[in-house]
């Protein structure tokens, strides 16, 4: 097939990718957008298979079959609560592919005896660097989300110095590769150093900052693909990679803004590393916390006209979304208006709560973002906070010295009555006490999220 046809097909694929992202950013066109992206990928792969350089198809088809089977299995079997882990893994696989392709491209120049150009060696080094950071960063993010390692920030002295040294070492070995492209050793040094860098830069970032990290790794996976495009001199890869890079950066910015923190602060700050002191917790909570029972809350709900659920990561952990939906249906059948207040960084990835509640058949219209719901809290009879903590902490508004100062929060405290479903008074990720739990209009329902909501349903049934 003539090269011009191949390249025109690649151009068509690139256009489809742009339409894919455009579609994915509007609810009505999202499904079509995703299909356009898949179509773009299909024609890109198909035309590549027709390339005459390819002399053996067995292994390619084997690879495609194995990859498709594993990918489909993951996509169909994965629980919605485990979605952050899945996205983290997929980010990483993209990075790994870039490392391998760049390595193979370098070795091919050794075989064919072609003198590698400066562009090629620089691009190969960049692919190896970004790809390895993406892969190992994603593996650490996965391990943290899956709780294979502690979700807390892991800090050690000299961390920043070590990272700086690793960055310099990776770039240095990249330069070495550009100087001595006849051997592959410098390349594997780049990859090894960058792999360590991926681990040491992700390990200090704590669980609640995961939405930022996942968005950033998403962006990296795009940049790794773009770098591979530079290696292969393939514009379609460059365009596709750049698009993904941009999309990841946009999400990263949205997440940072929702926490009122800069990206530098998230990456290097290590928030939550200092444990909450008992005295500060006592000063906030002592004698002021009112515990309640499911029966008491059910009585409140019986007469409530407007109820707002405020879900957080805890709801995902206890898998309470279906119970919440059942309770909401019950309330709605009694004429109560029910809505859900979604904080942009609630959960462990962008949009985590939306996905969970959609899985439980909560209608899209009932999910309200922060700016829409906040003015409505004063007219809300009961706000039920389930598994959320820092995103409803009024200290963000009042205490300029608190680690979450200035973070936009959900004004759940302005509802007539606030019911907080929580197992204990343990602090959230920011490691600070939450005055909301001791507020005059707050009732604490100490229990596991799912059990508490099911108890509420039983109590309401009993009352009816």
């Amino acid at each position: 097939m003539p090269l011009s046809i191949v390249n025109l097909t690649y151009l068509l694929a690139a256009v489809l990718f742009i339409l894919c992202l455009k579609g994915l950013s509007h609810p009505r066109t999202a499904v079509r957008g995703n299909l356009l992206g898949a179509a773009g990928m299909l024609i890109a792969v198909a035309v590549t298979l027709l390339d005459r350089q390819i002399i053996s198809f067995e292994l390619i088809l084997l690879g495609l079959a194995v990859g498709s089977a594993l990918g489909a299995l993951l996509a169909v079997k994965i629980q919605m609560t485990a979605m952050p882990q899945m996205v983290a893994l997929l980010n990483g696989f993209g990075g790994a592919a870039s490392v391998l392709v760049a390595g193979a491209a370098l070795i091919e120049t050794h075989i064919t005896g072609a003198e590698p150009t400066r562009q090629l060696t620089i691009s190969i080094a960049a692919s190896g660097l970004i790809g390895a950071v993406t892969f190992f960063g994603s593996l650490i993010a996965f391990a943290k989300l899956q709780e294979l390692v502690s979700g807390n920030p892991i800090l050690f002295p000299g961390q920043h110095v070590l990272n700086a040294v690793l960055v310099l070492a990776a770039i240095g070995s990249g330069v070495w590769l550009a100087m001595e492209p006849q051997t592959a050793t410098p390349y594997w040094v780049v990859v090894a150093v960058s792999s360590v860098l991926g681990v040491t830069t992700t390990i200090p970032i704590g669980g609640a900052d995961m939405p930022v990290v996942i968005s950033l790794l998403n962006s990296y996976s795009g940049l790794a693909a773009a770098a591979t495009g530079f290696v292969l001199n393939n514009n379609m890869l460059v365009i596709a990679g750049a698009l993904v890079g941009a999309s990841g950066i946009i999400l990263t910015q949205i997440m940072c803004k929702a926490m009122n923190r800069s990206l530098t602060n998230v990456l290097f700050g290590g928030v939550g590393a200092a444990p909450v002191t008992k005295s500060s917790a006592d000063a906030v909570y002592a004698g002021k916390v009112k515990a309640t029972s499911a029966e008491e809350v059910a009585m409140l709900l019986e007469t409530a006209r407007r109820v707002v659920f405020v879900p957080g990561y805890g709801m995902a952990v206890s898998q309470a979304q279906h119970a919440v939906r059942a309770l909401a249906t019950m309330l709605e059948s009694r004429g109560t208006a029910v809505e859900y207040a979604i904080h942009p960084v609630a959960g462990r990835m962008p949009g985590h709560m939306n996905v969970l509640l959609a899985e439980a058949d909560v209608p899209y219209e009932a999910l309200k973002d922060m700016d829409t719901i906040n003015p409505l809290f004063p007219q809300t009879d009961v706000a039920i906070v389930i598994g959320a903590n820092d995103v409803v902490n009024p200290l963000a508004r009042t205490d300029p010295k608190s680690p979450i100062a200035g973070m936009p929060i959900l004004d759940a405290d302005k509802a007539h009555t606030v019911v907080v479903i929580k197992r204990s008074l343990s602090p959230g990720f920011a490691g600070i006490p939450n005055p909301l739990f001791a507020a005059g209009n707050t009732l604490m329902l100490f229990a596991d999220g799912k059990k508490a909501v099911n108890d509420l349903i039983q109590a309401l049934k009993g009352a009816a």
Partner: protein
Amino acid sequence: MEFLVATLTIFVLAIFVGFEVITKVPPTLHTPLMSGSNAISGITLVGAILSAGTKHTTLTEVLGVCAVVFATINVVGGFLVTHRMLAMFRKK
């Protein structure tokens, strides 16, 4: 270096296109946008296929096939899981 500059031009322009196209994405679509764009980053598959198929050496072939597997998981898993999520959003 002309190649590098030409490719760099396309790269920078494509980033701007990305920013313009994905404006004001609503929170509900944050996860699908991420998983969908993630599937696109599996485009490295194209390079992987070429490495795996050209049979320069066993080593490049092995690297290529591994890359094909990784990238295909990325592509197929990404688009499918995005579709599954969006289907959940659609049903009432």
